[in-house]
């Protein structure tokens, strides 16, 4: 993990700017721009209030996905950083845990900034909103762990665009970020509900707006936790197969 922090030391300027800029741009464009056309109240709240926590969860998903695709491939094939690490006392588990820990830290930074900017836009309506930060981290990891498992099994990066095209982008659009999934055609609703992002969005929204029910929270959390753990176990396997020959 220290390695990734070191590397980040050099590239942080770029990403800090985007960490601030994206939420501002999204909230301004979607909320104030598009939102001014949406006079309906959505799910009982103003449009901007509705989408802001959803965007936080979606951003966490994107960070989790980005950081576990190309960086993993690079560490195996292009820069071979993992192999440099494995020439030291570090083990495969250390390498995997270190990388995921770095992703978690990055998620922590991004979701914290996101929440602060949401507060500045006046979209935070509950003290529980602070918990959206760890939930955001978990949502990101629920993507990062299985995607890292997938990435470590790939020979090249062509699979990654498939993940974006058929995974991350559809989820971003249809998992309840911009409108309640109740508005989807009936057959699509169970599919949307089965996606991990739906659970991340529901949790964040419930926390930020303060209407989260405990039972629902438990279900959402368990889903994300299970996905993270399953992803981790799979990643352990694909990492070992790839790195120890």
């Amino acid at each position: 993990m220290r390695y990734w922090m070191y590397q980040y030391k050099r590239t942080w300027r770029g990403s800090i700017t985007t960490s601030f800029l994206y939420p501002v741009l999204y909230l301004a464009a979607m909320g104030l721009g598009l939102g001014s056309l949406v006079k309906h109240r959505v799910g009982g709240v103003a449009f901007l209030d509705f989408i802001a926590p959803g965007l936080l969860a979606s951003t966490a998903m994107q960070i989790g996905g980005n950081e576990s695709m190309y960086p993993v491939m690079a560490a195996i094939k292009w820069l071979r950083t993992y192999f440099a690490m494995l020439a030291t006392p570090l083990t495969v588990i250390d390498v995997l845990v270190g990388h995921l820990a770095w992703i978690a830290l990055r998620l922590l930074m991004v979701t914290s900034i996101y929440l602060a900017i949401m507060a500045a836009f006046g979209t935070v309506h509950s003290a529980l909103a602070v918990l959206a930060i760890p939930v955001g981290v978990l949502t990101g990891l629920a993507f990062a762990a299985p995607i890292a498992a997938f990435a470590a099994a790939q020979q090249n990066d062509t699979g990654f665009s498939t993940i974006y095209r058929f995974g991350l982008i559809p989820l971003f659009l249809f998992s309840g970020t911009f409108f309640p999934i109740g508005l989807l055609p009936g057959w699509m609703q169970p599919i949307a509900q089965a996606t991990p992002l739906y659970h991340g969005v529901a949790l964040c929204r419930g926390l930020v707006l303060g209407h989260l029910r405990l039972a629902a929270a438990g279900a959402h959390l368990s889903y994300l936790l299970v996905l993270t753990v399953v992803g981790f176990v799979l990643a352990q396997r694909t990492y070992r197969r790839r790195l120890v020959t």
Partner: protein
Amino acid sequence: MVARGLTKRFGDFVAVDGIDFEIGRGESYGLLGPNGAGKTSTMRMIACMSPVSDGTLRVLGMDPAHDGSKIRGRIGIVPQEDTLDLELTVLDNLMVYGRYFDLPRRVIRERAEQLLEFTQLTERAHDKVDPLSGGMKRRLTIARSLISDPEILILDEPTTGLDPQARHLLWDRLYRLKQQGVTQIITTHYMDEAEQLCDRLAVMDGGKFAAEGAPSDLISRYSTREVLELRFRDPDTDTAVLATRVEGLADRLEALPDRLLLYTDDGESTLAEVHRLGLSPESTLIRRSTLEDVFLRLTGRSLVD
């Protein structure tokens, strides 16, 4: 370090086929062999980066299968391809790597300064790695492998692709490390390098040891003291036919397209006999036998891959 029947299999392919060796503390041991002979696989097993398929291996008295992490903590590894972080500075590469060994930051910084001095990289300490020359990157990789103050240094083709200046600088550094008592295991394609650096070496071919011993032993065992080279410029010369005429003059004879190599203990007198037979080569050369002669004899002249 002791290996008995050490074997590495990848599926059906046997990369290392039951080799035995012992390497003592402070010794420099070379592994020579054509591409695909199993050198790197052997090194990776010794470095505890690749599980042993069969046979036994003890490194520093420990079993890599159980104490891999502990052993790696006392080994420095210079891989065949640099695995440096191109986006970090020279110094940061050393700092991060030192942290993998769980060394205190202060210790790493101290050692890093000494090592940069040692590898003549002090002036580039705060530059990024990417634009450095191949020789500098290689030196940094060696500095990095020494950050943990290892007892064993494993070098996989340390000077491949370097210019003569960089090679000699590296040899000089490796020699000094040897004097400090660091055990070294080196693979190389350069026979002069093996002769310079290694107390003992093994020639590998097809996953097995074709020969093992000190460089001078190998030369006396597998070659003669001198080699007489007869060069014929005339393209119509059939060296195979000429070879039959000089047969008996040398211990061993090799006919190449434009040359005859006569392996003999006394080149001068062999040359005199050649002249007496009425042969008139374009030019002649008497030289001492080298490891290269041994290597080519043991592994053949044809390309393997």
